[in-house]
Protein backbone atom coordinates (compact mmCIF):
# COMPACT_ATOMS: atom_id res chain seq x y z
CA UNK A 1 0.00 0.00 0.00
CA UNK A 2 3.03 2.26 0.41
CA UNK A 3 3.62 2.13 -3.32
CA UNK A 4 0.01 2.94 -4.13
CA UNK A 5 0.01 5.87 -1.74
CA UNK A 6 3.17 7.27 -3.29
CA UNK A 7 1.49 7.06 -6.67
CA UNK A 8 -1.30 9.39 -5.54
CA UNK A 9 0.96 11.79 -3.66
CA UNK A 10 3.39 12.07 -6.55
CA UNK A 11 0.64 13.62 -8.65
CA UNK A 12 0.94 16.79 -6.59
CA UNK A 13 4.42 16.72 -5.02
CA UNK A 14 7.97 15.48 -5.26
CA UNK A 15 8.44 13.11 -2.37
CA UNK A 16 11.62 12.45 -0.47
CA UNK A 17 12.31 9.92 2.22
CA UNK A 18 13.42 11.50 5.48
CA UNK A 19 13.50 8.35 7.55
CA UNK A 20 12.37 4.72 7.37
CA UNK A 21 12.23 1.74 9.69
CA UNK A 22 10.99 -1.62 8.46
CA UNK A 23 10.90 -4.01 11.41
CA UNK A 24 8.45 -6.71 12.44
CA UNK A 25 8.75 -5.58 16.06
CA UNK A 26 6.77 -2.45 15.18
CA UNK A 27 3.72 -4.67 15.74
CA UNK A 28 1.72 -3.48 12.73
CA UNK A 29 1.98 -6.35 10.25
CA UNK A 30 -1.13 -5.71 8.17
CA UNK A 31 -0.43 -5.24 4.47
CA UNK A 32 -4.03 -4.16 3.91
CA UNK A 33 -4.20 -1.34 6.44
CA UNK A 34 -2.34 1.94 6.18
CA UNK A 35 -2.12 4.85 8.62
CA UNK A 36 -1.14 8.33 7.47
CA UNK A 37 -0.14 11.14 9.80
CA UNK A 38 -0.22 14.89 9.28
CA UNK A 39 1.95 16.59 11.87
CA UNK A 40 1.65 20.15 13.29
CA UNK A 41 0.11 22.67 10.89
CA UNK A 42 -0.43 25.78 13.08
CA UNK A 43 -3.07 27.56 10.99
CA UNK A 44 -3.51 31.27 11.68
CA UNK A 45 -5.80 33.99 10.34
CA UNK A 46 -4.46 35.95 7.39
CA UNK A 47 -4.03 39.07 9.48
CA UNK A 48 -2.28 37.41 12.39
CA UNK A 49 0.02 35.47 10.07
CA UNK A 50 1.77 38.73 9.18
CA UNK A 51 3.12 39.06 12.72
CA UNK A 52 5.23 35.90 12.64
CA UNK A 53 8.24 34.70 10.70
CA UNK A 54 6.67 31.27 10.09
CA UNK A 55 3.23 30.35 8.83
CA UNK A 56 1.84 27.08 7.54
CA UNK A 57 4.04 25.72 4.74
CA UNK A 58 2.72 25.36 1.19
CA UNK A 59 -1.01 25.79 2.02
CA UNK A 60 -2.06 24.91 -1.54
CA UNK A 61 -0.04 21.72 -1.44
CA UNK A 62 -1.55 20.74 1.90
CA UNK A 63 -5.07 20.99 0.50
CA UNK A 64 -4.02 19.07 -2.63
CA UNK A 65 -2.43 16.28 -0.58
CA UNK A 66 -5.62 15.91 1.46
CA UNK A 67 -7.67 15.69 -1.73
CA UNK A 68 -5.33 13.03 -3.17
CA UNK A 69 -5.64 11.07 0.04
CA UNK A 70 -9.40 11.18 -0.37
CA UNK A 71 -8.99 9.80 -3.92
CA UNK A 72 -6.63 7.15 -2.56
CA UNK A 73 -9.23 6.06 0.00
CA UNK A 74 -12.16 6.17 -2.40
CA UNK A 75 -10.37 4.12 -5.03
CA UNK A 76 -9.09 1.50 -2.62
CA UNK A 77 -10.38 -2.07 -3.01
CA UNK A 78 -12.80 -3.33 -0.37
CA UNK A 79 -10.21 -5.51 1.36
CA UNK A 80 -8.07 -2.50 2.25
CA UNK A 81 -8.50 0.12 4.96
CA UNK A 82 -6.84 3.40 5.81
CA UNK A 83 -6.90 5.99 8.57
CA UNK A 84 -5.70 9.57 8.49
CA UNK A 85 -4.54 11.39 11.61
CA UNK A 86 -3.62 14.97 12.36
CA UNK A 87 -1.26 14.88 15.33
CA UNK A 88 -2.26 18.14 17.01
CA UNK A 89 -1.63 21.89 16.67
CA UNK A 90 -3.91 21.97 13.64
CA UNK A 91 -4.90 25.50 14.59
CA UNK A 92 -2.59 27.83 16.49
CA UNK A 93 -4.91 29.39 19.06
CA UNK A 94 -1.92 30.37 21.17
CA UNK A 95 -0.40 32.65 18.51
CA UNK A 96 -3.76 33.83 17.19
CA UNK A 97 -5.20 35.29 20.36
CA UNK A 98 -2.82 37.36 22.48
CA UNK A 99 -5.08 37.01 25.49
CA UNK A 100 -3.71 33.51 25.92
CA UNK A 101 -0.46 35.09 27.06
CA UNK A 102 -1.98 35.98 30.39
CA UNK A 103 -2.41 32.98 32.63
CA UNK A 104 -6.01 31.92 32.92
CA UNK A 105 -7.29 34.64 30.65
CA UNK A 106 -9.54 33.99 27.70
CA UNK A 107 -10.79 36.57 25.28
CA UNK A 108 -14.42 37.43 24.91
CA UNK A 109 -13.63 37.47 21.24
CA UNK A 110 -12.05 34.03 21.46
CA UNK A 111 -14.65 32.08 19.52
CA UNK A 112 -14.66 34.80 16.85
CA UNK A 113 -10.87 34.47 16.60
CA UNK A 114 -11.15 30.71 16.16
CA UNK A 115 -13.73 31.26 13.46
CA UNK A 116 -11.45 33.78 11.70
CA UNK A 117 -8.75 31.11 11.37
CA UNK A 118 -11.29 28.73 9.86
CA UNK A 119 -12.69 31.36 7.50
CA UNK A 120 -9.22 32.34 6.26
CA UNK A 121 -8.17 28.76 5.53
CA UNK A 122 -11.26 27.36 3.87
CA UNK A 123 -9.46 25.16 1.33
CA UNK A 124 -7.36 23.41 3.98
CA UNK A 125 -10.24 23.08 6.45
CA UNK A 126 -12.60 21.69 3.80
CA UNK A 127 -10.07 19.18 2.53
CA UNK A 128 -8.68 17.94 5.86
CA UNK A 129 -12.06 17.91 7.59
CA UNK A 130 -13.82 16.32 4.65
CA UNK A 131 -16.02 13.56 6.16
CA UNK A 132 -14.88 11.20 3.39
CA UNK A 133 -11.29 11.62 4.55
CA UNK A 134 -12.36 10.85 8.12
CA UNK A 135 -9.33 12.54 9.66
CA UNK A 136 -8.85 11.80 13.36
CA UNK A 137 -7.68 14.96 15.07
CA UNK A 138 -5.57 15.11 18.19
CA UNK A 139 -5.45 18.02 20.65
CA UNK A 140 -2.11 19.80 20.77
CA UNK A 141 -0.71 22.36 23.19
CA UNK A 142 -1.42 25.18 20.70
CA UNK A 143 -5.07 24.22 20.13
CA UNK A 144 -5.98 22.45 23.34
CA UNK A 145 -8.99 24.72 23.86
CA UNK A 146 -10.80 23.29 20.85
CA UNK A 147 -12.22 20.71 23.20
CA UNK A 148 -14.63 23.39 24.48
CA UNK A 149 -16.36 23.71 21.10
CA UNK A 150 -19.10 21.29 19.99
CA UNK A 151 -18.12 21.45 16.32
CA UNK A 152 -14.73 19.97 17.27
CA UNK A 153 -16.30 17.00 19.06
CA UNK A 154 -14.05 14.49 17.34
CA UNK A 155 -10.78 15.94 18.71
CA UNK A 156 -9.09 13.58 21.18
CA UNK A 157 -5.90 13.39 23.26
CA UNK A 158 -4.67 10.10 21.78
CA UNK A 159 -5.59 7.05 19.72
CA UNK A 160 -4.51 3.47 20.35
CA UNK A 161 -4.45 1.17 17.31
CA UNK A 162 -6.33 -2.04 18.16
CA UNK A 163 -5.00 -5.38 17.01
CA UNK A 164 -8.58 -6.51 16.41
CA UNK A 165 -11.31 -3.87 16.36
CA UNK A 166 -14.00 -6.31 17.41
CA UNK A 167 -12.01 -7.98 20.19
CA UNK A 168 -10.88 -5.58 22.91
CA UNK A 169 -9.01 -8.30 24.75
CA UNK A 170 -6.37 -8.51 22.02
CA UNK A 171 -5.14 -5.06 22.90
CA UNK A 172 -3.40 -2.39 20.88
CA UNK A 173 -0.15 -2.20 19.00
CA UNK A 174 0.66 1.51 18.70
CA UNK A 175 -0.42 4.92 19.90
CA UNK A 176 -0.73 8.32 18.23
CA UNK A 177 -0.61 11.50 20.33
CA UNK A 178 0.71 15.07 20.10
CA UNK A 179 3.79 14.53 22.25
CA UNK A 180 3.71 17.65 24.44
CA UNK A 181 3.15 15.53 27.54
CA UNK A 182 6.71 14.24 27.11
CA UNK A 183 8.14 17.74 27.47
CA UNK A 184 8.07 17.61 31.22
CA UNK A 185 4.50 18.91 31.23
CA UNK A 186 3.32 16.08 33.43
CA UNK A 187 5.98 16.93 36.00
CA UNK A 188 4.33 20.35 36.34
CA UNK A 189 0.90 18.89 36.97
CA UNK A 190 0.29 18.73 40.71
CA UNK A 191 0.04 15.24 42.13
CA UNK A 192 -3.60 15.63 43.11
CA UNK A 193 -4.56 16.54 39.54
CA UNK A 194 -2.55 13.66 38.10
CA UNK A 195 -4.31 11.31 40.49
CA UNK A 196 -7.68 12.77 39.51
CA UNK A 197 -6.92 12.51 35.82
CA UNK A 198 -5.47 9.04 35.89
CA UNK A 199 -7.49 7.22 38.51
CA UNK A 200 -10.96 8.68 38.46
CA UNK A 201 -11.40 8.98 34.74
CA UNK A 202 -9.78 5.88 33.46
CA UNK A 203 -6.18 4.68 33.41
CA UNK A 204 -5.46 6.87 30.42
CA UNK A 205 -6.78 10.40 30.12
CA UNK A 206 -8.47 10.49 26.77
CA UNK A 207 -10.70 13.52 26.50
CA UNK A 208 -10.40 16.40 28.90
CA UNK A 209 -13.50 17.02 30.99
CA UNK A 210 -13.79 20.79 31.20
CA UNK A 211 -15.16 20.94 34.71
CA UNK A 212 -12.45 18.78 36.22
CA UNK A 213 -9.43 19.20 33.98
CA UNK A 214 -9.66 22.88 33.19
CA UNK A 215 -6.60 23.21 35.39
CA UNK A 216 -4.63 21.25 32.77
CA UNK A 217 -5.16 24.20 30.49
CA UNK A 218 -3.48 26.47 33.04
CA UNK A 219 -0.52 24.11 33.17
CA UNK A 220 -0.24 24.25 29.38
CA UNK A 221 -0.38 28.06 29.49
CA UNK A 222 2.39 28.13 32.10
CA UNK A 223 4.41 25.73 29.97
CA UNK A 224 4.16 28.17 27.04
CA UNK A 225 5.50 30.71 29.55
CA UNK A 226 6.25 34.05 27.89
CA UNK A 227 6.97 32.54 24.47
CA UNK A 228 5.80 34.81 21.70
CA UNK A 229 6.93 32.42 18.94
CA UNK A 230 7.66 35.42 16.73
CA UNK A 231 10.89 34.14 15.18
CA UNK A 232 10.40 30.41 15.65
CA UNK A 233 8.07 27.92 17.32
CA UNK A 234 10.13 24.80 18.02
CA UNK A 235 13.20 24.89 15.80
CA UNK A 236 15.49 27.97 15.99
CA UNK A 237 17.36 26.62 12.95
CA UNK A 238 16.24 24.34 10.09
CA UNK A 239 16.21 20.62 10.95
CA UNK A 240 19.07 18.94 9.15
CA UNK A 241 18.06 15.77 7.30
CA UNK A 242 21.36 15.38 5.50
CA UNK A 243 20.56 13.11 2.51
CA UNK A 244 17.00 13.18 1.21
CA UNK A 245 16.23 10.01 -0.70
CA UNK A 246 13.68 10.09 -3.59
CA UNK A 247 10.82 8.06 -2.12
CA UNK A 248 9.90 6.23 -5.29
CA UNK A 249 13.39 4.93 -5.86
CA UNK A 250 13.52 1.18 -6.53
CA UNK A 251 16.35 0.62 -4.07
CA UNK A 252 14.80 2.19 -1.00
CA UNK A 253 16.80 1.15 2.09
CA UNK A 254 14.80 -0.75 4.73
CA UNK A 255 16.40 1.20 7.53
CA UNK A 256 17.23 4.81 6.78
CA UNK A 257 18.21 7.68 8.99
CA UNK A 258 17.17 5.99 12.26
CA UNK A 259 18.73 7.17 15.51
CA UNK A 260 19.46 4.65 18.21
CA UNK A 261 19.74 5.00 21.94
CA UNK A 262 23.38 4.76 22.81
CA UNK A 263 24.67 6.22 19.56
CA UNK A 264 22.30 9.00 18.50
CA UNK A 265 22.61 12.62 19.65
CA UNK A 266 20.38 14.25 22.25
CA UNK A 267 18.19 16.07 19.76
CA UNK A 268 17.51 12.95 17.69
CA UNK A 269 16.64 10.95 20.82
CA UNK A 270 14.41 13.62 22.38
CA UNK A 271 11.36 12.12 24.17
CA UNK A 272 12.38 8.54 23.30
CA UNK A 273 12.77 7.57 26.94
CA UNK A 274 9.63 9.42 28.02
CA UNK A 275 7.55 7.83 25.26
CA UNK A 276 8.88 4.36 26.07
CA UNK A 277 8.13 4.84 29.79
CA UNK A 278 4.65 6.14 28.98
CA UNK A 279 3.86 3.11 26.81
CA UNK A 280 5.33 0.76 29.41
CA UNK A 281 2.82 2.17 31.89
CA UNK A 282 -0.04 1.60 29.48
CA UNK A 283 1.21 -1.91 28.72
CA UNK A 284 1.31 -2.69 32.43
CA UNK A 285 -2.20 -1.35 33.04
CA UNK A 286 -3.84 -3.18 30.15
CA UNK A 287 -1.49 -6.11 29.54
CA UNK A 288 -0.74 -4.76 26.06
CA UNK A 289 2.47 -4.64 24.07
CA UNK A 290 2.70 -1.19 22.49
CA UNK A 291 6.17 -0.73 21.04
CA UNK A 292 5.48 2.17 18.69
CA UNK A 293 4.36 5.76 19.16
CA UNK A 294 3.65 8.50 16.61
CA UNK A 295 4.01 12.12 17.69
CA UNK A 296 4.36 15.64 16.34
CA UNK A 297 5.07 18.67 18.53
CA UNK A 298 8.87 18.98 18.12
CA UNK A 299 8.82 19.91 14.41
CA UNK A 300 11.88 17.67 14.03
CA UNK A 301 11.01 14.70 11.82
CA UNK A 302 12.91 11.57 12.85
CA UNK A 303 12.66 7.94 13.87
CA UNK A 304 14.37 6.93 17.09
CA UNK A 305 14.73 3.43 18.45
CA UNK A 306 15.50 2.02 21.89
CA UNK A 307 16.43 -1.65 21.95
CA UNK A 308 17.96 -1.65 25.41
CA UNK A 309 16.86 -3.70 28.43
CA UNK A 310 15.44 -6.34 26.12
CA UNK A 311 12.47 -4.18 25.14
CA UNK A 312 12.20 -2.76 21.65
CA UNK A 313 10.53 0.62 21.25
CA UNK A 314 10.28 3.02 18.30
CA UNK A 315 9.30 6.68 18.31
CA UNK A 316 8.21 8.18 14.99
CA UNK A 317 8.19 11.96 15.12
CA UNK A 318 6.31 13.05 11.99
CA UNK A 319 7.83 16.52 11.90
CA UNK A 320 5.72 19.49 10.91
CA UNK A 321 4.05 21.45 8.17
CA UNK A 322 5.67 24.67 9.39
CA UNK A 323 9.19 26.06 9.92
CA UNK A 324 12.10 24.86 7.84
CA UNK A 325 14.38 21.95 7.19
CA UNK A 326 17.40 21.33 5.01
CA UNK A 327 18.92 18.39 3.23
CA UNK A 328 20.97 17.23 0.30
CA UNK A 329 18.92 17.03 -2.87
CA UNK A 330 20.91 15.76 -5.84
CA UNK A 331 24.15 16.64 -4.03
CA UNK A 332 23.06 20.19 -3.34
CA UNK A 333 22.11 21.42 0.10
CA UNK A 334 18.69 22.94 -0.05
CA UNK A 335 16.62 24.72 2.61
CA UNK A 336 12.90 23.96 2.33
CA UNK A 337 9.70 24.64 4.17
CA UNK A 338 8.81 21.62 6.30
CA UNK A 339 6.02 19.60 4.69
CA UNK A 340 6.25 16.17 6.25
CA UNK A 341 3.90 13.25 6.69
CA UNK A 342 4.29 9.92 8.44
CA UNK A 343 3.06 6.60 7.08
CA UNK A 344 2.68 3.14 8.63
CA UNK A 345 1.78 -0.16 6.98
CA UNK A 346 3.20 -3.69 6.80
CA UNK A 347 5.56 -3.10 9.75
CA UNK A 348 7.09 -0.28 7.72
CA UNK A 349 7.17 3.23 9.21
CA UNK A 350 8.24 6.12 7.00
CA UNK A 351 8.49 9.87 7.08
CA UNK A 352 8.37 11.82 3.83
CA UNK A 353 9.22 15.42 2.98
CA UNK A 354 6.98 16.79 0.24
CA UNK A 355 7.96 19.57 -2.15
CA UNK A 356 5.45 21.18 -4.54
CA UNK A 357 6.00 20.22 -8.13
CA UNK A 358 7.53 23.01 -10.13
CA UNK A 359 5.36 24.64 -12.75
Amino acid at each position, binding site marked *: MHKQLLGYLSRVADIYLVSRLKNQRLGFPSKNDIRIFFPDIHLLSRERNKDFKYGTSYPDLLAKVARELKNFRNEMTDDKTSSIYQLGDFLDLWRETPEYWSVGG*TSDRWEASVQQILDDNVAIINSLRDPDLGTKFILGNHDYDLH*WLPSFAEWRLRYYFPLDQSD*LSKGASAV*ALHGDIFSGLEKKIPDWLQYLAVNLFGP*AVTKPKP*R*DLGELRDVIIKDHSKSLYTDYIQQPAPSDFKDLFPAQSRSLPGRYNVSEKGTGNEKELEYLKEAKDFCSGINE*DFKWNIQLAFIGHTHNARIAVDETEGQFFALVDCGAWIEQCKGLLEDQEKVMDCAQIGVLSDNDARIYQLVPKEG
Partner: protein
Amino acid sequence: MRNKNRSLRFQTVFFILLVIFIYSSCHKNRPIFVAVRESDFRFGPILLPLTDAAKKNLTLFLVKGGDHNVCDYVDPGAPKRYEGLLTLLSDDEFLNNANNLKLDAEKKSVKISRRLKKWFRDPIVYQIVDATQKRPPLVNPISISDGTFWWVFYRAEDSSGTFRIEKLLVTLDIVNEVKR
Protein backbone atom coordinates in the same frame (compact mmCIF):
# COMPACT_ATOMS: atom_id res chain seq x y z
CA MET B 1 -17.54 48.29 74.29
CA ARG B 2 -18.12 50.16 71.04
CA ASN B 3 -15.02 48.53 69.55
CA LYS B 4 -16.26 45.15 70.65
CA ASN B 5 -19.64 45.73 68.94
CA ARG B 6 -17.93 46.91 65.79
CA SER B 7 -15.71 43.87 65.79
CA LEU B 8 -18.68 41.55 66.26
CA ARG B 9 -20.57 43.26 63.46
CA PHE B 10 -17.58 42.96 61.18
CA GLN B 11 -17.21 39.27 61.98
CA THR B 12 -20.90 38.64 61.33
CA VAL B 13 -20.80 40.41 57.98
CA PHE B 14 -17.61 38.59 57.06
CA PHE B 15 -19.14 35.25 58.01
CA ILE B 16 -22.27 35.91 55.95
CA LEU B 17 -20.19 36.95 52.95
CA LEU B 18 -18.05 33.84 53.36
CA VAL B 19 -21.12 31.60 53.37
CA ILE B 20 -22.47 33.30 50.26
CA PHE B 21 -19.10 32.95 48.53
CA ILE B 22 -18.77 29.26 49.43
CA TYR B 23 -22.34 28.54 48.39
CA SER B 24 -22.00 30.27 45.05
CA SER B 25 -18.69 28.52 44.42
CA CYS B 26 -20.15 25.11 45.18
CA HIS B 27 -23.46 25.66 43.48
CA LYS B 28 -22.71 24.87 39.88
CA ASN B 29 -24.96 25.92 37.06
CA ARG B 30 -27.42 23.13 36.37
CA PRO B 31 -28.11 22.29 32.71
CA ILE B 32 -31.71 22.92 31.80
CA PHE B 33 -31.81 20.35 29.05
CA VAL B 34 -29.79 17.59 27.44
CA ALA B 35 -29.11 17.84 23.71
CA VAL B 36 -29.01 14.63 21.71
CA ARG B 37 -25.95 14.84 19.52
CA GLU B 38 -25.35 13.98 15.87
CA SER B 39 -25.58 10.33 14.88
CA ASP B 40 -21.82 9.74 14.98
CA PHE B 41 -21.78 10.78 18.63
CA ARG B 42 -24.74 8.92 20.05
CA PHE B 43 -25.66 5.30 20.70
CA GLY B 44 -29.26 4.12 20.69
CA PRO B 45 -31.99 4.37 21.59
CA ILE B 46 -31.92 0.66 22.39
CA LEU B 47 -34.39 -1.45 24.31
CA LEU B 48 -33.59 -2.52 27.84
CA PRO B 49 -32.61 -4.92 29.38
CA LEU B 50 -29.33 -4.96 27.49
CA THR B 51 -28.67 -8.09 25.49
CA ASP B 52 -25.12 -9.46 25.20
CA ALA B 53 -24.85 -8.04 21.69
CA ALA B 54 -26.07 -4.62 22.82
CA LYS B 55 -23.61 -4.68 25.73
CA LYS B 56 -20.76 -5.43 23.35
CA ASN B 57 -21.75 -2.69 20.90
CA LEU B 58 -22.25 -0.13 23.63
CA THR B 59 -18.88 -1.01 25.16
CA LEU B 60 -17.24 -0.51 21.78
CA PHE B 61 -18.91 2.90 21.44
CA LEU B 62 -17.58 3.89 24.87
CA VAL B 63 -14.09 2.59 24.08
CA LYS B 64 -14.12 4.69 20.91
CA GLY B 65 -14.77 7.77 23.02
CA GLY B 66 -18.31 8.14 21.76
CA ASP B 67 -17.51 8.44 18.07
CA HIS B 68 -18.74 5.75 15.66
CA ASN B 69 -16.37 7.12 13.04
CA VAL B 70 -13.30 6.03 14.99
CA CYS B 71 -11.75 2.61 14.50
CA ASP B 72 -9.17 3.02 17.27
CA TYR B 73 -9.37 2.87 21.05
CA VAL B 74 -9.74 6.27 22.69
CA ASP B 75 -10.70 5.15 26.20
CA PRO B 76 -9.25 1.69 26.84
CA GLY B 77 -10.36 1.84 30.48
CA ALA B 78 -14.04 2.04 29.54
CA PRO B 79 -14.92 -1.69 29.60
CA LYS B 80 -13.73 -2.16 33.17
CA ARG B 81 -15.14 1.14 34.37
CA TYR B 82 -18.63 0.62 32.97
CA GLU B 83 -18.90 -3.15 33.46
CA GLY B 84 -20.98 -2.93 36.62
CA LEU B 85 -23.33 -0.37 35.11
CA LEU B 86 -24.00 -2.45 32.03
CA THR B 87 -24.70 -5.44 34.26
CA LEU B 88 -27.23 -3.36 36.15
CA LEU B 89 -28.87 -2.36 32.89
CA SER B 90 -29.30 -6.02 32.05
CA ASP B 91 -31.19 -6.63 35.30
CA ASP B 92 -35.01 -6.65 34.97
CA GLU B 93 -35.50 -6.07 38.67
CA PHE B 94 -33.56 -2.79 38.49
CA LEU B 95 -35.28 -1.69 35.30
CA ASN B 96 -38.80 -2.43 36.47
CA ASN B 97 -38.97 0.73 38.49
CA ALA B 98 -37.60 4.01 37.14
CA ASN B 99 -37.38 5.29 40.70
CA ASN B 100 -34.33 3.08 41.08
CA LEU B 101 -32.48 5.77 39.17
CA LYS B 102 -33.03 8.29 41.93
CA LEU B 103 -33.29 8.59 45.65
CA ASP B 104 -36.60 8.11 47.38
CA ALA B 105 -39.09 10.32 45.54
CA GLU B 106 -40.77 11.24 48.82
CA LYS B 107 -37.81 13.43 49.67
CA LYS B 108 -37.82 16.95 48.28
CA SER B 109 -34.44 16.82 46.63
CA VAL B 110 -34.01 14.65 43.58
CA LYS B 111 -30.62 13.02 43.37
CA ILE B 112 -29.27 9.95 41.65
CA SER B 113 -29.55 6.73 43.58
CA ARG B 114 -26.69 5.35 45.62
CA ARG B 115 -26.42 2.36 43.30
CA LEU B 116 -25.49 4.68 40.44
CA LYS B 117 -23.17 7.03 42.32
CA LYS B 118 -20.16 5.03 41.19
CA TRP B 119 -20.70 6.14 37.57
CA PHE B 120 -22.85 9.23 37.61
CA ARG B 121 -23.04 12.62 39.22
CA ASP B 122 -25.92 14.94 40.00
CA PRO B 123 -28.04 16.57 38.71
CA ILE B 124 -30.83 14.61 37.08
CA VAL B 125 -32.17 16.41 34.02
CA TYR B 126 -35.65 15.84 32.69
CA GLN B 127 -35.70 18.15 29.68
CA ILE B 128 -34.37 16.82 26.41
CA VAL B 129 -33.94 18.39 22.99
CA ASP B 130 -33.86 15.67 20.36
CA ALA B 131 -34.04 16.98 16.80
CA THR B 132 -34.20 13.39 15.52
CA GLN B 133 -37.78 13.29 16.85
CA LYS B 134 -40.82 15.11 15.56
CA ARG B 135 -41.87 16.60 18.89
CA PRO B 136 -40.80 16.63 22.54
CA PRO B 137 -41.55 13.39 24.39
CA LEU B 138 -44.80 13.04 26.29
CA VAL B 139 -43.05 11.15 29.09
CA ASN B 140 -39.80 12.92 29.88
CA PRO B 141 -36.81 10.62 30.14
CA ILE B 142 -34.37 10.76 33.04
CA SER B 143 -30.91 11.88 31.96
CA ILE B 144 -27.81 11.64 34.08
CA SER B 145 -24.19 12.41 33.25
CA ASP B 146 -20.97 10.53 33.89
CA GLY B 147 -18.90 13.56 32.95
CA THR B 148 -18.40 12.53 29.32
CA PHE B 149 -21.74 11.13 28.25
CA TRP B 150 -25.36 11.76 29.05
CA TRP B 151 -27.24 8.52 29.66
CA VAL B 152 -30.86 9.08 28.72
CA PHE B 153 -33.26 6.59 30.27
CA TYR B 154 -36.63 6.56 28.53
CA ARG B 155 -39.53 5.57 30.72
CA ALA B 156 -42.80 3.82 30.00
CA GLU B 157 -45.80 3.60 32.28
CA ASP B 158 -46.94 0.10 33.06
CA SER B 159 -50.38 -1.17 34.06
CA SER B 160 -49.75 -0.62 37.76
CA GLY B 161 -49.04 3.08 37.23
CA THR B 162 -45.33 2.94 37.89
CA PHE B 163 -42.74 3.79 35.28
CA ARG B 164 -40.27 1.22 34.12
CA ILE B 165 -37.02 2.04 32.30
CA GLU B 166 -37.66 0.98 28.75
CA LYS B 167 -34.94 2.35 26.50
CA LEU B 168 -31.46 3.82 26.71
CA LEU B 169 -29.66 6.42 24.61
CA VAL B 170 -26.07 7.45 25.28
CA THR B 171 -24.91 10.75 23.82
CA LEU B 172 -21.64 12.64 24.02
CA ASP B 173 -21.86 15.70 26.23
CA ILE B 174 -21.81 19.22 24.86
CA VAL B 175 -20.04 21.92 26.83
CA ASN B 176 -22.10 25.07 26.56
CA GLU B 177 -19.99 27.46 28.51
CA VAL B 178 -16.31 28.21 27.99
CA LYS B 179 -14.44 28.56 31.25
CA ARG B 180 -13.65 32.21 31.80
